[in-house]
Structure formats: structure tokens, C-alpha cells
């Protein structure tokens, strides 16, 4: 899935953040058996709260914190900055990581079988398909995130970032994907070693208008192209 997709919305070209979800399903022989494209409608309250936490940072403060709803449903404290002036080294972190490694289903692109309607307060997929090879599980692959830069051919121009993750069905039965989510990780520490924040939190969820059935030994590749309108 190396195609560069245009991210635009003719109904609201100036929407500041937008995106598309592309899904391609292949059978065990590598043949494409289903593919589709869906407009994202799904950024949630956690996304806004995380942005506000970052913007509220000063740039040289011990900690600036905010609150999101973690994927367990409980309020969780995230950081927008972490500083240490003396005595402690290794201070730092990241506020909204999506680059999950293979085998990790706690952040990055997640898939599920739920069909419950989206609302802004949601903090998890309705029914996440967990990583694994047992019945009802999919093997989560390595994320790849590509900075596509500004697509100036669009009007207005859009800065595009593409996140791709493959999912393999190593079970004996087909598995149906109905929902796709983006879960971020807020992680901050020093070399104390002391973990100051380690929170995974859903920032987007979309219920797909089409179900995707991943056959045994088949795979699904999900690509989310996020656009930031820049002009």
C-alpha cells in the first residue's frame, strides 16, 4: 500500500484535521479480495485534550499535565512537557506516539469487530480484536509511518502523514473487521529510572460502512492518511 492518497473534503476543504482510512484484504495466496476507502469522522475528546495539554506547556516547566480517559475507562494523567533542572538526567518523553511495534495491540492502529456508533467520549474500540493466533485474534504487524509532506496540488494545500499497519489472520477461521481506531501512547521518564507517565489513550475511532472479512492465512492492511490543512 504505497499509494499516496489525496486527503481532502470537498464539503469542508478548510477542516484543520482530516483523514482517510484505506483497507486492503488479501487471501492466503496474496490476492486482493476486498478493498475500500472511508472518510475519517472520528477524532475524539482525548485528541483535543492531548493537544491542549501540549499547547498549555511553557517550555521549561517541571511538568505540564492534562487528563484523558485511558483505554481502561479511567481518568489518566498525561504530560505535555517534563523538565529537570539538576541532579536528574534522561528527562524527556513523547506525547502522542503511534509507531507501535509488531505484536503490540495497546497502541498504534487497532482494529475491532464492534459496530457501536461513535461518540466523542469513547476511550476504546467497542470490541477490539486482540493480537494473537488464537480464535478471534489477529497478528498485529509493525507500524510504518511516512511523512508525505505538503500536497500543494490540493486547494487548500494539505500536509499528509500516512500510518500503515498489517494484520495477519493466523487462525483457522475468518475474522471480521468493522471498526478502526488510533490509539496513542504518552510516555515520559528520566534515568532515575522513574516513569512519569505511561498512558495509552484512544484518539480516533471509526465504524466502517463496510465489513471486511479476513480469511484464514490472509491479511488486512490498514492505512490511515491524516491531513493537516495548511493554507
Amino acid at each position, binding site marked *: 500500500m504505497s499509494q499516496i492518497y489525496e486527503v481532502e473534503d470537498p464539503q469542508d476543504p478548510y477542516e484543520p484535521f482530516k483523514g482517510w482510512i484505506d483497507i486492503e484484504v488479501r487471501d492466503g495466496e496474496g490476492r486482493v479480495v476486498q478493498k475500500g476507502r472511508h472518510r475519517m469522522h472520528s477524532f475524539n475528546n482525548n485528541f*483535543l485534550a492531548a493537544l491542549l495539554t501540549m499547547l498549555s506547556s511553557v*517550555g521549561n516547566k517541571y511538568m*505540564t499535565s492534562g487528563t484523558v480517559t485511558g483505554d481502561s475507562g479511567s481518568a489518566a494523567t498525561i504530560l505535555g512537557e517534563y523538565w529537570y533542572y539538576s541532579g536528574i538526567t534522561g528527562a524527556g518523553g*513523547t506525547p502522542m*506516539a503511534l509507531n507501535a511495534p509488531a505484536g503490540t495491540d495497546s497502541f498504534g492502529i487497532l482494529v475491532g469487530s464492534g459496530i457501536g456508533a461513535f461518540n466523542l467520549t469513547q476511550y476504546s474500540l467497542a470490541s477490539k480484536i486482540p493480537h494473537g493466533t488464537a480464535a478471534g485474534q489477529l497478528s498485529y504487524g509493525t507500524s510504518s509511518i511516512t511523512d508525505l509532506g505538503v500536497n500543494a496540488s490540493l486547494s487548500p494545500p494539505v500536509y499528509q502523514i500516512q500510518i500503515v499497519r498489517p494484520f495477519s489472520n493466523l487462525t483457522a477461521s475468518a475474522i471480521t473487521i468493522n471498526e478502526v481506531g488510533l490509539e496513542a501512547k504518552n510516555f515520559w521518564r528520566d534515568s532515575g529510572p522513574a516513569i512519569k507517565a505511561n498512558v495509552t489513550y484512544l484518539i480516533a475511532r471509526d465504524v466502517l460502512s463496510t465489513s471486511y472479512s479476513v480469511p484464514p492465512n490472509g491479511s488486512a492492511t490498514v492505512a490511515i492518511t491524516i491531513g493537516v*490543512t495548511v493554507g
Partner: protein
Amino acid sequence: MKGWIIIELDGKEVYRGESRSFVQNLGKILSLMFQSSASGSTGASATITNTSGYSDSIYGEYYGGNSPDGFAPMAVNAPVGTDSYGIVVGSGSTPQTYSDYALAKQIKNGTGAGQISYGDHTTASSYGSTSSYIAISRTFTNQSGSAIVVREVGIIARQTAVSGGIGDVKYLIARDVLANPITVNNLGTLTVTYTLTLST
């Protein structure tokens, strides 16, 4: 999602428009954050043009090695009197482009001729199941003795990726040229609010 700019002059709303203002630097920093793996190791960097017009590096995941150290990827909450980051205002009217790295002509903090006093920032938020918003505001007071005309507003972010006290980058993430200039009379106040809204 929608972005809005709301401007109040002496407490009265004089401008409300859809924000069409983000520049490519915002895409770069978000991309770097997304590319992070939260592994505890410093991640990739990207080159941006800082507000002085020079190339600089920014990160989405960073850990210092020498005290003092720390990381703030996209700080905007500048204190009173600081005009190097936060919400800023200017008198330039050059049309916005995605490659902008500074206001066309920023009005500096101060009480001298052509200057305006930069206030503190405030934030607001409301989170519901069908509609939500976040907002960040800054008030500017004209103590220069003469009227000042504001034609552009913007947001400058500050990234401190610091090890041993080194690493402080100011980079523009938004700039809007106003459809109509706003005149701030002597002793007048101007409040600029950026808002992001979500609805289902």
C-alpha cells in the same frame, strides 16, 4: 473538526472566522510525534525554519543526557511580556502561505511606539458526547500612546529539547491575515482566541 479565530476589542467581539491558518511546521511536528515509538530513546528529527529564518531541528520524542534536561515539543503558554512564542499579533498583510515561518511584521512586546504589551495566556475546554472544544487566548494591551493596527495573528510554538541547557526552538504553526484590520486605540485591549471544535 473546525478551527476558529475570535477577536475581541475592548471586550467586544469584532471578528469571528474559520481559521485557515496552520502552516507546514504543524504537520512536521505532528508527524514526528506520530512516528515516535515511546521506546525511551530519542526519535527522528526534522528540519524546520525557525522564526528567525534559520534551519533548526525538532523532535517528536526526546530524552536529555546532561542536566538540566527535558522536553516540551509544542509549548505555546508563554508568560506575560514574552513575544517570542505563544499567540502573537502583527501589522503585516502579506498573504499566508504554508511555508510561512514568522509573521510578516510582528508587533513587539513593549510600551514604546508601535509596541503592544503581551499578556498571559488562558485556556478553556468543554468535552461532551456530541460537541467539544478547546481554546487558548491571549490579551494584548496598547500602552504606546498611539493607535496600533493589527492585520495578522499567529501562533508560535516553542520546542525545548534540552540536554545540558542547550536546545530551544521557536517555530510558527499558524498565521492568519485578517480580512479587515483592527485598530487598537491607546489603552485599548485586544484578545485573540484560537478554538478547535469537534462535533458528531
